[in-house]
């Protein structure tokens, strides 16, 4: 096979951020400015190389470019390799990740200015980008899993970046643990597939193993279990029900982090994983249905929750969950190219929204929408980009979000009407909560922001102003992408590239269904209109509505996030696990095991205490001992 891209280039993409991480960690801790620039430079270079790679891969119609593997280590039958795999899917992802990362880093230069952990921030960001790129490039499951975990750690470090805030530290831990819960499934899948198929190679699993299943030579159940393991990993990483609870909390991290990691890249890794193993999903009907329904439920549920949030970033977080759920059910119903497409468009408009939120908070010191309002005059650029992003998200033609969402809906209509309904409901809700945000944030009167905490950097929020150029330019670029990124779909080429990653080549095509377009647009517009009417025009008194007899229980349900967090944290972890199982074990350890050990010793000790009483210093006792001893010996002889 010819090599359109030299392997060195691919590895360079990966090692550039690695190098920047190492450089910052080792030498640039005390040179924040240099650290930031190093990162930006490294990622810019990586972005350029990614573009080059993508271009070359497009030239090959997205078919995988294989490189040799490199043995990392072996142990008996186990051989662990390192290798890169470039195909349409990963090339697209490379570009998405590096581009978003680049923009976010640039934005961060301004956003994080003055933070004590500036260098540390960029080190983590480099680490994250490197890990994410490694995850994308991985050609085998072990490597994929390794980077999967590294991405999680980078996320952990970044969520807990402001570790002095207890909430941030707790959120970081929660994020890692919840995702790791899902990772167990992935790990199990890795182990399972190796023990049954003896390979980690993604391509082999996708083609050979799936083919074997088709021939009945490989257990269908095993494959389903494997797929479920992957799904578990994806659910954790992509914050799907029921493991979604970490993502809203993860908003404690710096906003650029949320933009990069928790909207565009890492959370999309779950989708990427499933997309990578799309043939496996396809081969297992149960797994497909499972993920489809998980996605459908999550899409609507998260959108509902987004409606009641007052924290702008939490709205966006639930929105992310909801959108990722779209991707999930898209994969579940077989809309693989559409899912990747939406993944890409989402990776542009969602960071944009986050950056916008960051821009807002940059001047108001808060993410609480109840303290904002009327910012559209003070921050026109932010306002415009935010609206573009919201429209794109809401799926208004001709913005990027529309095209990708439309494709998913079309496929859903074709495959599963029920899920299609869920998708439509989510569309309406999405439009509603986004414009609720816009109304509350940018319209009406300014409600004063939040004065900065004494020990933190921050500005006086009484006079809101536009953010510096370092922040607005990336937003503008993203806004542009949020508009145009969807247009690549028209020729069907995008689908073709992406399909190139599959074992069987399949030409991509573009579809248009007016009915579905009308339905979704109508719902979106209705959502927008409703939000504007309620939150901007004050058509309905929201407080009164929420207190209304029928609505109140629903409101309470939503306000408590379906009681999921309580269930998980309070009941399962704190009560059942920490207060129950773990406590039992700890008590058992002290009261039973250690007590037994000490008891044996004490018994020996007491035996001595009593035993010595026999040595009462009396000659005659001792003499009796002689005869008793004789009797004992005699007894022994008689007995034995």
């Amino acid at each position: 096979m010819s090599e359109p891209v030299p392997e060195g280039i691919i590895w360079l993409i990966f090692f550039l951020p690695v190098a920047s991480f190492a450089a910052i960690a080792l030498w640039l801790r005390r040179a924040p400015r240099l650290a930031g620039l190093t990162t930006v430079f490294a990622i810019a270079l990586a972005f350029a190389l990614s573009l080059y790679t993508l271009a070359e891969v497009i030239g090959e119609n997205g078919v995988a470019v294989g490189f040799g593997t490199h043995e990392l280590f072996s142990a008996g039958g186990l051989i662990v390799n390192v290798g890169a795999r470039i195909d349409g899917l990963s090339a697209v992802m490379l570009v998405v990740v590096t581009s978003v990362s680049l923009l976010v880093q640039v934005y961060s230069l301004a956003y994080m200015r003055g933070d004590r952990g500036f260098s540390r921030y960029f080190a983590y960001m480099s680490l994250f980008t490197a890990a994410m790129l490694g995850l994308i490039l991985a050609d085998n499951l072990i490597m994929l899993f390794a980077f999967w975990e590294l991405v999680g750690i980078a996320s952990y470090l970044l969520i807990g970046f402001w570790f002095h805030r207890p909430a941030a530290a707790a959120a970081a831990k929660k994020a890692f643990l919840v995702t790791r819960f899902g990772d167990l499934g992935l790990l199990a899948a890795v182990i399972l597939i190796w023990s049954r198929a003896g390979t980690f190679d993604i391509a082999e699993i996708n083609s050979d193993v799936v083919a074997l299943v088709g021939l009945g030579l490989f257990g269908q159940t095993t494959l389903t279990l494997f797929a479920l393991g992957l799904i578990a990993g994806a659910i954790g990483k992509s914050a799907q029900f029921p493991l979604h609870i970490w993502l809203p909390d993860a908003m404690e991290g710096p906003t650029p982090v949320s933009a990069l990691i928790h909207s565009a890249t890492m959370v999309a890794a779950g989708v990427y994983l499933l997309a990578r193993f799309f043939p496996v999903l396809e081969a297992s009907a149960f797994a497909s249905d499972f993920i489809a329904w998980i996605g459908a439920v999550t899409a609507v549920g998260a959108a509902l929750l987004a409606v009641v949030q007052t924290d702008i970033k939490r709205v966006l977080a639930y929105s992310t969950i909801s959108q990722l759920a779209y991707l999930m059910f898209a994969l579940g119903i077989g809309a693989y190219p559409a899912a990747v497409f939406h993944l890409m468009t989402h990776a542009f408009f969602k960071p944009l929204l986050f950056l916008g939120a960051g821009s807002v908070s940059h001047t108001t010191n808060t993410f609480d929408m109840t303290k904002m309002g009327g910012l559209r005059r003070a921050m026109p650029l932010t306002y415009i980009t935010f609206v573009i992003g919201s429209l794109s998200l809401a799926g208004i033609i001709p913005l990027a979000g529309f095209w990708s969402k439309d494709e998913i809906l079309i496929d859903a209509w074709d495959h599963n009407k029920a899920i299609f309904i869920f998708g439509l409901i989510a569309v309406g809700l999405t439009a509603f909560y986004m414009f609720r945000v816009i109304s509350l944030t940018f319209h009406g009167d300014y409600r004063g922001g939040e004065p900065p905490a004494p020990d933190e950097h921050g500005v006086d929020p009484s006079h809101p102003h536009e953010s510096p150029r370092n922040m607005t330019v990336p937003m503008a670029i993203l806004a542009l992408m949020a508009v145009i990124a969807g247009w690549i779909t028209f020729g069907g080429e995008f689908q073709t590239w992406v399909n190139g990653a599959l074992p069987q080549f399949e030409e991509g095509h573009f579809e248009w269904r007016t009915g579905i377009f009308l339905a979704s647009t109508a719902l979106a517009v209705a959502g927008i209109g409703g939000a504007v009417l309620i939150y901007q025009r004050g058509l309905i008194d929201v407080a009164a509505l929420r207190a209304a007899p029928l609505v109140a229980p629903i409101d309470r349900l939503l306000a408590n996030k379906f009681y999921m967090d309580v269930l998980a944290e309070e009941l399962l972890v704190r009560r059942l696990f920490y207060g129950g199982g773990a406590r039992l074990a700890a008590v058992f350890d002290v009261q039973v095991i250690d007590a037994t050990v000490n008891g044996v010793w004490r018994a020996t000790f007491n035996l001595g205490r009593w035993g010595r009483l026999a040595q009462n210093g009396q000659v005659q006792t001792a003499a009796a001992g002689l005869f008793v001893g004789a009797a004992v010996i005699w007894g022994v002889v008689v007995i034995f």
Partner: protein
Amino acid sequence: MTIALEEYLVVAAVLFGIGLYVALSKRNAIGVLMGIELMLNSVNLTLVAFSRFSESAVALSTQVFVVFIIAVAAAEVAVGLALAMVVYRNRHTVSIDEINLMKW
């Protein structure tokens, strides 16, 4: 019925038992020594009985043994009484049950 070895041995056994009882029960250390002497006498009786009855070459040996035992017994009593005197000098008692400064 013939008086033979067995009768002597039984007498010796009884004597040994009584000696044992005396040695184990008397309060006075000298009493204990008496018990020991009774036990040794029992041994002597046994040996002499064997010397008389046993059809083997040890008739002489046993008697020699008895001589040694008697000598040793005397020596033991001498040393024992000397020790008892020392104890008495220290403690004004030779009661065995009071001689238990060291125990446990």
